[in-house]
């Protein structure tokens, strides 16, 4: 009926309708994909070993990037924060500013974006190639639950890796802030660290870790979904399909992280 209605509508309305249906059905499909992947955790054999491997793959690859970006984010926050706060004679609050910025916003968001760029894109490309070369179909012919074997371990690993890497990002960022604020610009080191201690509350840490876990789940699901269905609904085939799926995975998951950031933040404020 919807198709008939759209066929009789003016072109712009029918195009809008088709696009809306495509987006809504895409969300539905993504939800089913996530549900099926978590549901497969029950029936997948030797899952623990695959989770450990996924933690290693997601975690170690991104470690240098997390450390470098975390350090420079802290350095910039220390530098900018010092010059802004010094206008009001509040340099003593530099630690509070750096720590709260990192814990509540910059840590989870930037760490997730780095993880998407590194392990998320790799995941989408790997699954896309496996789809292309019939490795996923081969699993299904063997009676192996392909979601359970390929996606579930990555989703579980994301719930561990993203919060851990975010914590690392934040700690290195504190140190970067201290380096620029205390060592280079002269804020007393004791004042900087005690300001952090006074400012950070448990709810801030809770917000940080919840955001990291949500972003991890969201981005790994989107990247896995795009790679897993690299052959579906698009005109590209072969290597181009994998490349397009990887691009979509990075773009969509980065946007969704920022959308989710607003939604989760609004619950905590």
């Amino acid at each position: 009926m919807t198709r008939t209605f759209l066929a009789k509508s003016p072109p712009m309305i029918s195009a809008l309708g088709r696009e809306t249906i495509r987006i809504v059905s895409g969300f539905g499909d993504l939800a089913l994909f996530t549900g099926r992947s978590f549901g497969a955790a029950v029936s997948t054999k030797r899952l623990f070993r695959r989770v450990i491997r996924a933690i290693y793959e997601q975690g170690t690859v991104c470690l240098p990037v997390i450390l470098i970006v975390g350090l420079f984010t802290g350095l910039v926050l220390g530098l900018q924060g010092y010059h802004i706060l010094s206008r009001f004679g509040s340099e003593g609050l530099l630690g509070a500013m750096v720590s709260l910025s990192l814990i509540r916003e910059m840590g989870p968001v930037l760490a997730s974006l780095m993880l998407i760029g590194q392990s998320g894109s790799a995941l989408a490309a790997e699954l896309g190639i496996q789809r292309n070369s019939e490795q996923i179909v081969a699993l299904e012919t063997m009676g192996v639950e392909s979601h359970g074997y390929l996606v579930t371990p990555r989703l579980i690993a994301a719930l561990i890796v993203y919060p851990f890497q975010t914590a690392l990002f934040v700690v290195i960022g504190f140190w970067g802030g201290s380096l620029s604020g205390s060592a280079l610009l002269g804020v007393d080191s004791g004042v900087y660290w005690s300001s952090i201690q006074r400012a950070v509350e448990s709810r801030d840490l809770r917000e940080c870790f919840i955001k990291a876990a949500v972003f991890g789940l969201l981005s790994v699901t989107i990247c896995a979904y795009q790679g897993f269905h690299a052959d579906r609904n698009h005109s590209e085939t072969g290597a181009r399909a994998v490349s397009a799926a990887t691009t979509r995975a990075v773009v969509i998951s980065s946007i969704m992280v920022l959308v989710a950031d607003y939604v989760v933040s609004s619950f905590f404020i």
Partner: protein
Amino acid sequence: MNPPSTDAPLLQVDQLVKSFGENPVLDGIDLRVQRGSIFTVLGPSGTGKSVFLKCLAGVMQHDSGMISFEGRPLVISDKETRADFRRRCSFLFQNNALFDSLSALENVSLPLEQTTDLDSREIQHRSMDALAQLELESFRDRFPSQMSGGMQKRLALARAIVTRPELVLFDEPTAGLDPLRRNAVFSMIVKYQRRFNFTALIVTHDVPEALVASNRVALLNGGRICFEGTPGDFSSSSDPVVTGFRDSTEALRESLSLIRSDFQA
């Protein structure tokens, strides 16, 4: 060659239909595959041989018709029968579909790890045994990309037989191979079919090799099985479709040998 069993068929296909949009690919396929036999479905490229095999393996959904394994129909709603079929059936892909990030041993042990409750030692033992049967035990730590095409084919077969299946589906096992390697692959299929006594269903367009290796052959043309019989019947058939297909492959072979002799001259 093993004489085919005279019991009820292991695999039975009745009026199988599959279309892509308005284009019918399989238009009412009927087939009976006896236990312990090598059954080859011949046909020109693009006639839906691989689609037929994928419908049998359950990776592609057919539109109508019935597939029965040991007399039990395989329907989507009967998950138990389907799961049982998948445990007892293996699929050898045209491009082998090996996991390039796993070693040879890991590739072979994957179906045992994921579909059985065997302990690690037994899995290792059975996987090594399968590799040894296919003379690949010294390549256990190599990745598929570090192996030749023939070795990859053997590795794919090792992975297919490690679960001790009763039925192995071969999708164009000799696609893209030269005549010598085509012969070698068919010899390998016959050798291991005898050793492990599985039933083999092969789809290919390589007529001479298939006629030597098979107990029965069928010709798929225009979405239908237009011939079924022994290799001898196929060679002597005067059916115009059969003779047309036979002549076209022979003509191709002759023209290729002419080109080859020209080059050699």
